[in-house]
């Protein structure tokens, strides 16, 4: 009977071998994904009880910090001025996950990032309680505050960029929320607070500035103008600007919402009064491909600011002439985030060079040693410097003499463009304004959107509602 017993022994050996191999497999291939599961209470509790690093705005203002707590977790996450910075910090909750920088920089803030490995070992050896790294943002509290105050309780968003670097100087989205409610150690009330916000019809948790896309309306005429300049036109080239334009191969007429000042006007004039028919004609002239190419050079069809989950703005495909004419004035299926429209202004202001927008400049370990630094990066050259300068002047005219006069700042030359867009005839229009200042040496580019603008649909909406907000933001920066 010894032969079968030896075989049985061999089978038993295989069984034990499988147990050991499976354990090894689990440690190597399953461990990290298991630890990353949001339902993993062990990991979550440990993280929640950790001395998480701070999130800072410019000037070392703490916009998220950790203070000692006296309940079952050792530390409490606190957001001084939580509502003001919610769009950037996001929230950090026990069982409703996290958002914003709290989510994207979780490993660094919690101190579990690989770059902090040596630090962790030292902490372990010296029995110090480990501390996460701090995240330095580019947000300037003064500008952020000005933007929030100017927008007030209106639904909408404001984005301010440094055109030369791409740094996000301010990002406000309204209505906002207080992340302190969701970070509460009273897990139940925190969960309820989150659920209330998540089911709110005004969507306070969504980042309107970077994630949401809207029809850009007339602000898109900047892109069309840039494409026309690249196509060989000059600011003084004449364009047909009939009172109404019959859209090719349709029975639909595109009207002007303002008086264009003639049936054949310069491009400068067309931009100044935001003449629909002139820009529709320009779009038809330039053609679909060149218009799309220009839009993409400004950053359309790509995601930006991944740190805050930025979405991609869209320029539609396969257009017929009627659709092309509508797209050229920012209607039909063109959709852009406020961040994207700020990037358009920023690229024009930066002599045609589009900088990659970013919000985190440095990550520092607790001994203040930088472990991650962002260097400004060029995304593309959207325009030649000459064309950019021409367009800057044209935008200057829009503010000094045209629809954007509400953005005028005494003593500073400002360039801008208004916009009003309607996604649905039954909805109230969106009021847009995008601008930069000063004209000769731009320091800030801004985009503002106000949803549900409560005035009749015309091009003045952007100028009347959004331009003053942009002006307040620019004033704060200068």
């Amino acid at each position, binding site marked *: 009977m010894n032969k079968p*017993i030896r075989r049985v022994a061999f089978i038993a050996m295989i069984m034990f071998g*499988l147990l050991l191999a499976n354990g090894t497999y*689990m440690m190597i291939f399953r*461990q990290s994904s*298991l*630890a990353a599961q949001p*339902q993993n209470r*062990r990991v979550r509790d440990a993280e929640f009880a950790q001395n998480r690093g701070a999130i800072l705005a410019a000037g070392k203002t703490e916009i998220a910090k950790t203070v000692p707590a006296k309940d079952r977790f050792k530390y409490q996450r606190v957001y001084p001025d939580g509502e003001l910075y919610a769009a950037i910090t996001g929230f950090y909750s026990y069982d409703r996950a996290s958002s914003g920088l709290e989510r994207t920089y979780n490993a660094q803030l919690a101190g579990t990032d690989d770059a902090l490995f040596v630090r962790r070992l030292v902490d372990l050896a010296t029995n110090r309680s480990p501390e996460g790294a701090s995240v330095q943002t580019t947000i300037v509290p003064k500008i952020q505050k000005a933007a929030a105050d100017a927008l007030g309780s209106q639904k909408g968003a404001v984005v301010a960029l440094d055109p030369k670097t791409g740094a996000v100087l301010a990002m406000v989205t309204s209505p906002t929320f207080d992340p302190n409610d969701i970070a509460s150690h009273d897990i139940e009330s925190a969960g309820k607070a989150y659920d209330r916000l998540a089911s709110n019809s005004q969507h306070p948790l969504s980042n309107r500035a970077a994630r949401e896309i809207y029809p850009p309306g007339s602000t898109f005429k900047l892109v069309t103008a840039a494409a026309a300049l690249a196509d060989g036109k000059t600011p003084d080239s004449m364009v047909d600007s009939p009172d109404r334009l019959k859209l090719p191969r349709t029975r639909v007429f595109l009207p002007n919402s303002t008086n264009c000042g003639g049936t054949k006007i310069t491009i400068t004039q067309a931009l100044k009064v935001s003449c629909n028919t002139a820009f529709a004609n320009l779009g038809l002239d330039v053609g679909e491909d060149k218009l799309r190419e220009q839009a993409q050079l400004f950053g359309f069809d790509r995601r930006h600011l991944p740190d805050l989950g930025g979405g991609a703005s869209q320029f539609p495909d396969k257009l017929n002439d009627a659709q092309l004419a509508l797209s050229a004035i920012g209607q039909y299926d063109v959709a852009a985030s406020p961040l994207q429209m700020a990037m358009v202004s920023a690229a024009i202001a930066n002599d045609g060079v589009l900088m990659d927008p970013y919000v985190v400049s440095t990550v520092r370990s607790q001994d203040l040693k930088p472990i991650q630094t962002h260097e400004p990066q060029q995304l593309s050259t959207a325009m030649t410097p000459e064309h950019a300068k021409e367009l800057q002047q044209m935008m200057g005219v829009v503010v000094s003499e045209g629809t954007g006069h509400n953005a005028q700042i005494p003593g500073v030359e400002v360039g801008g463009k208004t916009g009003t867009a309607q996604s649905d005839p039954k909805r109230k229009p969106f009021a847009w304004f995008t601008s930069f200042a000063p004209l000769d040496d731009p320091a800030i580019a801004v985009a503002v959107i106000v949803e549900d603008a409560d005035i009749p649909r015309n091009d003045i909406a952007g100028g009347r509602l959004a331009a003053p907000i942009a002006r307040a933001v620019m004033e704060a920066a200068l």
Partner: protein
Amino acid sequence: MRVVAPVTVVPRKRRGVELALMIFALGLTLGAYALVDINVTGELSSAFPYVAGICTLLAALTHIAVRWRIPYADPVILPCVILLNGLGLVMIHRIDLINDPPLNGARQQLIWTAIGVLMFILVVAWLNDHRPLQRFTYTIGLAGIVLLLLPLVPGLGTEKFGAQIWIHIGPYSFQPAEAAKVLLAIAFASYLVEKRDVLALAGYRILGIDLPRARDLGPILVMWLISLAILVWQRDLGTSLLFFGLFVMMLYVATERAGWAVLGTLLFAAGAYFGYLNFSHVRARVGAWLDPFSNFDLYYQVINAQFGMAWGGLLGTGLGLGRPGLTPLARSDFIAAAIGEELGMTGLMAVVMIYGLIVARGLRVALQCREPFGKLLATGLSFAFALQVFTIIGGVTRLLPLTGLTTPFMSQGGSSLVCNWIVAGLLLVISHQVRKPAATVAPINPDVEQTQLVKAGA
């Protein structure tokens, strides 16, 4: 002509080695127990001296019994058993401390350990030889099958966590499968020793494998039906696998016909597939195994065991410093997950290796044994032990679908602990019978002996 002195090989008893290993196992257990106390409460509990005293006393009793009645027994098995039992006790104590006020699981387990040790001593001292068991083949076999099917008796069996493998008498609950495992291993061994010549006769030959004759299929079909009954009504794939696997393996060893093993494997595969198709509880177990995250609430336990082991990582959080309480049933079915969390994958693998050592020593006894009943019994007990460890630890670590088997010597529960102590006792008894020198006869010296004169017949 050189006269070669007759060589009598007297095996070494190795009781000293056993004692040293036992002291090591005991030290490890008590050290771990103290560590749990210190890590959780910051101080040694007042009960610690008693626990230490009782553990030491029980270990000493087993050692004395072995030294006295079975001095030639295998020296490794007993220390391994003591270490596993001790570690189980430590983990149960650790999980007791999660509750406030602490539960008394460890105290109960210690009482059951004492009963287990008592049964072990009875087997060692009173039974002392496994061969008389051969006389009660059918009585033991019947008792085993009755015990196995007992949970199906209405009013007696209770359903726990979907599986009906428990019986309740008054305040006591009992998992009869454990006792049935021992009884059936004995019954199978003696039955097969009797019938193996007949069962070894070859029938048809397919693909180079001799299949048994059709008329000999009776026993295997009966066992198959019983294990299917367990699967269908007791809803436990593990118990079903354990018994059918035990029977088929012993049949194969007894007859040396691979055909039996092939046939048995096919029958079991068919039964398991049938179960998968027809029973939601089997499907749920398979679902939890293949993709636990498809339903977090339903597969909560398996998922949390995974989380625990991932949290423990390679070296574990340290005794008393993990959170094994987050996994339901951490003290019984999922004690391996608690070990994996606090002692790490390294600790869990060490435990698996200790089980492996017991199995290896048991199979070694089987190989050395010279009579078929002892051989078959030792193989059966060792293999059932291996299969049980493989199924439950494999289930907890998601190598296999989870089943309701206990982790031998470790999970909380009296029936399992006592029965496994009996298994350990039986293995030691067999090993003693195998290794003890044959009764010594006065050496024969033909020169000295007088030649007997035999009167030739007329």
